[in-house]
């Protein structure tokens, strides 16, 4: 299992029966592949519908039905379409229970930066700023370090923020952490990983409880 699949599988365990969930593009989208069989989750797509289903069979793509990344998708029974204003009423209005987003940087205060690297890469925020503002629970799905090996879990974000103090949970291939009023808590570590390794790869200060659990993705 690669690290992205591991992260997606762990986050899927956070899904609650009957909840409305919005998944960001890329790694977060993979969470939909691992919804536990005994629960029902409705996925919202910010381009304008509830009831996002899997990719269509080859040859059955509908040019008028895509996800927010313009990939062809399907709609499940009971879904509905709406315009962008209603879509963001759903998002900002507190009707989305959980969102999963990627990160360029995330910090111990729950600040998230995922929409631009100054003077380098400026894709724009899309719907991310509204999602972190309105979703009841914000989960960050990210690899623990950058390709160059620097920690993405920082004391303080450097890049421009997507949202201030908005993140609840951070899941990486090494650890599951929660943002609390006291600070960033290392709740779980990946199988085969030591607490020391997580600490050494984390720039943020970690609160380490006595009973750090092992991440379960089965």
């Amino acid at each position, binding site marked *: 299992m690669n690290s992205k699949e591991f992260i997606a599988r762990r986050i899927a365990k956070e899904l609650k029966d009957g909840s409305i969930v919005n998944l960001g593009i890329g790694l977060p989208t993979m969470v939909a592949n691992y919804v536990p069989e005994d629960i029902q989750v409705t996925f919202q797509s910010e381009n304008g519908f509830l009831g996002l289903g899997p990719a269509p069979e080859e040859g059955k793509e*509908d040019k008028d039905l*895509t996800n927010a990344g*313009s990939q062809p998708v399907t709609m499940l029974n009971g879904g509905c379409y709406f315009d*962008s204003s209603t*879509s*963001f009423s759903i998002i900002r209005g507190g009707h989305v229970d959980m969102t999963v987003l990627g990160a360029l940087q995330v910090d111990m205060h729950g600040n998230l930066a995922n929409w631009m690297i100054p003077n380098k890469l400026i*894709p724009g*925020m*899309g719907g991310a700023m509204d999602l972190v*503002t309105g979703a009841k629970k914000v989960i960050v799905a990210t690899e623990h370090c950058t390709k160059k090996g620097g920690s993405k879990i920082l004391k303080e974000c450097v890049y421009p923020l997507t949202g201030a103090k908005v993140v609840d949970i951070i899941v990486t291939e090494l650890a599951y952490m929660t943002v609390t009023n006291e600070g960033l808590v290392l709740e779980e570590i990946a199988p085969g990983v030591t607490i020391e390794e997580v600490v050494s790869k984390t720039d943020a200060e970690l609160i380490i409880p006595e009973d750090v659990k092992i991440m379960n993705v089965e």
Partner: protein
Amino acid sequence: MNKIISYEQAIDKIEDGMTIMIGGFLGVGNPHGLIDALVNKGTKDLTIIANDTAFPQIGLGKLIVNKQVKKVITSHIGTNKETGRQMSEGETEVILVPQGTLAEQVRAGGSGLGGFLTPTGVGTIVEEGKQKITIESKEYLLELPLKADVALLGGSTVDKKGNTFYNKTTQNFNPLMAMAAEIVIVEAENIVEIGEIDPHLVMTPGEVVDYIVEGVK
């Protein structure tokens, strides 16, 4: 009154320097024929208001590549590298707006509202230069309405009066923009007779549509 006009007649209504809203989300729901006609005519110094700048070869991204745009107000440019390049080199002004805020700015513009208060962007660079207002101890940004000279929309089924149905996820910004521009032009994938669309399914009232062009099949 006959609202159906040719692509040439439609594009002639757009002058250099105008502000144009274009419906669509990464090309889905874009009025592709109108965009191609606008590219062919080469009308320049446009201000574009749209969710995103699509792709270099798909949808309204072509207007960016053809250097017809002076300014873009949008939420996402990541799928069109040319927008990013023109932004970095100072050729095109790009104003990035959170998607929900952009949708609501257009809605406010078309609804006679003077603005609205949103929590989105508080504590980020989006709040720079904006008035912050506290309501029941929560901070909000005052965001102002957006309007345009012309809206170019992608309709799925349109009757000859202009009543418009947008299929599936082609809806997105289209019905909001239909309310927010002086001149509203819908590119119809299918044109039908008045009365053929179930009134319950009309998403843009024909009364706000000025012109209809027949979509390229």
